[in-house]
C-alpha cells in the first residue's frame, strides 16, 4: 500500500468526520484539510517525470482549497454572525450510517463501473464516488447555506480525485477550469450568504421557500 492509498483512506476518513461533525468551524477546517491532502495527489499520480503543470496544479489547488476557501468561509461565518451549530435535517448518527452505506455502494459501483482509462489505484473510483455521494448528502441534509457550500466543495473534491488519479494525461486545462468554476462558485455563494443574512436575518434555507414562485 503506497502513498496514494494512504491519501485515499484519509479522504474517506475526512468525509466520515464531516458527516458526523456538529460544529461549523470544525467542518470548514476538515474540508480545508481534505483539499490540502488532495493537492498532493497529482504529484504522486504522475507516471513520467514531474512536470511544471503538475506542480502548478497541486500548488494552486492546495492554496485555494486549503487557504482561500477557509478564509472566505470563516469570514462569511463572522460577518453573518452565525452560531456554531450545523443544524442538520438528518441526525449525526444517521448521517454517519448513511455515509457507511454510501461507502459500500461506492465500492460496489467501483467494481461495476467500466473505466475506459487506467487509474493509479483500485480504490480511486470508489473513493471518488464516495466523495461525490457524501457531498450530495451534505447538501441535502443540512439547513445552513454555508453547509451547502461545504457539500459542494466535497463533491468537487470527488471529481478532482478522479481527474488527478487517471494515468492517461487528462487535459490540465480542464482541471484548472473546474478549479476556477468552484472558486467563483464559493465566492458568489459567500456574497449571497451575506446578502441573504442581511435581508432575512438568517441563512436557513428552509425558511427561504416563500420565494418559490
Amino acid at each position, binding site marked *: 500500500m503506497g502513498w496514494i492509498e494512504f491519501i485515499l483512506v484519509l479522504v474517506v476518513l475526512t468525509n466520515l468526520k464531516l458527516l458526523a461533525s456538529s460544529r461549523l468551524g470544525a467542518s470548514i477546517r476538515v474540508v480545508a484539510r481534505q483539499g490540502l491532502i488532495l493537492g498532493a495527489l497529482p504529484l504522486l499520480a504522475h507516471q513520467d517525470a514531474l512536470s511544471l503543470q503538475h506542480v502548478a496544479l497541486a500548488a494552486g489547488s492546495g492554496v485555494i482549497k486549503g487557504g482561500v476557501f477557509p478564509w472566505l468561509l470563516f469570514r462569511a461565518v463572522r460577518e453573518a454572525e452565525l452560531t456554531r451549530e450545523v443544524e442538520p*435535517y438528518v441526525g449525526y448518527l444517521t448521517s454517519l450510517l448513511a455515509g457507511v452505506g454510501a461507502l459500500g455502494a461506492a465500492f460496489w*459501483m467501483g467494481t*461495476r*463501473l467500466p473505466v475506459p482509462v487506467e487509474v493509479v489505484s483500485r480504490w480511486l473510483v470508489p473513493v471518488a464516488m464516495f466523495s461525490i455521494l457524501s457531498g*450530495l448528502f451534505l*447538501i*441535502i*441534509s*443540512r*439547513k445552513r447555506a454555508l453547509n*451547502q457550500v461545504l457539500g459542494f466543495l466535497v463533491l468537487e473534491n470527488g471529481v478532482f480525485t478522479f481527474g488527478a488519479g487517471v494515468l492517461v494525461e487528462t487535459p490540465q486545462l480542464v482541471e484548472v477550469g473546474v478549479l476556477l468554476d468552484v472558486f467563483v462558485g464559493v465566492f458568489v455563494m459567500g456574497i449571497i450568504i451575506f446578502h441573504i443574512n442581511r435581508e432575512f436575518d438568517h441563512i436557513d*434555507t*428552509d425558511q*427561504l*421557500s*416563500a*420565494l*418559490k414562485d
Partner: protein
Amino acid sequence: MNALLLVALALLPATGFAAWFWGRTGRNPSGLAAAGVVAASVFGGLPAIYVLLGGELMPWRFPWPVPGGEFHLETDALTAWFLVPLFLLSACAAVYGAGFWRNGIATRRLGNAWLFYCLLVFAMMLVLLARNALLFLFAWELMALSSFFLVVFEQERATVRRPGWIYLGLSQAGAAFLFALLLILGHKANSMDFTHWAWRGVDSPVLAGVLFALAVLGFGAKAGFVPLHIWLPEAHPAAPSHVSALMSGVLIKTGIYGLIRTLTFLGEPAAWWGGTLLGIGLLTAIFGVTFALAQHDLKRLLAYSSVENIGLMAAGLGLGLLGWCLGEPVVGVLGLAAALLHAFNHTLFKGLLFLGAGSVLHATGSRQFEDLGGLLKPLPWTGALFGLGAVALCGLPPLNGFLSELLLMLTAFGSVLSPENPLAVAGLLTVAVLALVSGLAVATFSKAFGVTFLGEPRKPTTTPQENTGTMRAAMCILAAACVAVGFFGFMLVTPLQRVVAVLSPQFPKLFPASPSPLVWVSGAGVALLVLVAGLAVWRKTLLARRTVDATVTWDCGYARPHPRMQYTASSFAQPLTALFRALLRNRVRLSPPTGILPTAARLATEAPDLCAERLARPLFARLTTRLARWRWLQHGNVQLYVLYIALTLLALLLWKLR
C-alpha cells in the same frame, strides 16, 4: 472576405459589452452601439454580397470542447440571401434606435438594451452561418433570449411583461421540437455536422415525414404559422419600435430559413409536405390579413400583417414543393424563388413600416387609431415614408412587394396549367386566396394610413414633433431599398439562381431565359413613373394661372365640421369585418340611435385573437388544473431539489450498471 465576416462576428458582442459598460458609467451608449452595429453590418454585408455575386468562401472550423460541437461556419448562397437583409435592417434599426433612445431613459437600462440588441444581431447571424447542430441550437436559444429581454424593455408595465412571457413560452416550446429534430437527424447520421446531413435523406419515408412535421412546428413557432402565431400580435406592440422592426423583419424569417435548410437534409420531398405547407400558408395569410383589418392598434395591425406575409412565403414554398414532387420543376423553382424574394422584400418594407409606427408613437405617445389622425401635416416625412412602405407591402407596382407577389401569382398560374390534377387544384386555390389576401391587404393599409395620417386629429394633443435626422435617415435608406428593388428587381435573378441551386442543382437552369419578366416589370415601372410625372407637370400648368386655397379638412358642406365626424378605424373597416365575422368572431357592442331625435349612440368593437381565445387559453387553463396536483413537488426547499437531482443521477447510474 472571410476575415471580414469574422470581424463582424467579433465586433457585435464587443460593441454590446462596450455599450453595457458605458451605460453603467452613466454615459448614453446609443451612439457608440449604433456605430458598432453599422460597422459590423458593413463588414458582414460585403462578404454576403460577394457570395451572392458568385464568390466562394471557405468554411471555417474551430474546435469547441462540447461533445459533438464544433464552430463550423459556412456562407453559401442561401445563408447570404438572408444575411444581406439582416445586415441592412440591423444597421438601419440601430441608427433609428440611437435617435429613439436619445434621452430621458436611464443610461444603465439603455446599456443593457443595447447589449441585448447586439447579441440578437450576433445570434441571428450565427443561426444563418452555423453548420453544426449544437452551434445552431446555441445560437437559436441566444436569439430567443436576447429578443425576449428586448421585448420586456419596459418591464415595469404589466402590459409588457405578459407578452414577454407568451413569447418566451412559445419560443421555448418551438425550440423543443427543434431539439428533437436535430438530435434525431444527428443520431441517424452519427454526426452533428450539417454537411454530413445534406442530401443523405432519411431511409424511411415515415421518419422523414415526422422530421418534416417537427421542422414545421419548431420553425413555424418562430415564423408565426397559424395557430402558433399568437406571440406576434402580443410581442411586437410591446417591444420598442426598432426592435419590433428587427423581429418582424428578420427574426421571424429565420423560421423560413430553417425550414428551407431542413429540406436539404431530408432528401427527396413528399407531395403531402408541399400540400401541408401550402394549406398552412394560405390559412395563415387569410387569418393574418383579416385580423390585421380588425385591429385598433397600429403595431398590432403591422404584426398581423407580418403573419399574413409569412403565410404567403409558406404558400410559395409549399406550392414549389408540390410542383417539384409532381414533376413540374418550373413551378418548384418559381415557388421557391417567390418565397425567397418575398422574405427579402418583407424585411425592407415591414422594417420601414415599424420604424414609421415608432415615429408616430414617439410623436403622439399613442398607437391607438382612435387617438391618431391628421398626422400628415405635422409629420410629412414619416407620413410619406410610411405610405411608401404601405404601398410596397400591398404589392402595388412599381415597388418591391409587387415583384414577389407577381412571382407567387406566376407560380400559381404555372401550376393551374399543369396536367397534374392536384397541382392544378392547388394552383387555383392559391390564385383565389392570393387575390383575396391582396385585396384585403390594400383595405387594411388604406385604413392604417388613412386613419393615422389623413383627416383631423381625433384627440386634441400638443403639436407632434417630426422625427430627427438619424431616425429619418434610417427610414429613407429602407424606403430607397424598396424603390431600388422595385425598379432593378431583374438584377436579383442571378443571385436567386445561386440560392435555389442550394436546394437542387438542376433548378438554376429552369429560370426563364432573359429578358426575364422582371425586366418588363421594371420597364412598366419606369413608364408609370413617367406617366405620373407627366400628370404632375400637366396639373401644375393647369393650376399655374389660378389661385389655390388651403381649407379645413372635411369641409364638404358641413356648417361646423368636427373631428368626430370622421370615419373611425372601426367604421372604415366595418363592411369588410362584417363580411368576415364568421372567421373574426369580433365582439360588437352597439347601442344604435333610436327615435326621431336620437341622443346617444355607441359602438365598440373588439377583435381578440381567435387562436389565443379559443385554442391556447382553454388548453393552458386545462393544463394548469391538471398539473396543479403535482404542485407539491415544488415546495421551495433547496435541499429537496438537490435530492431530486441526486436521486435521478443515482437511478440512471444504477440502471446503467445493473
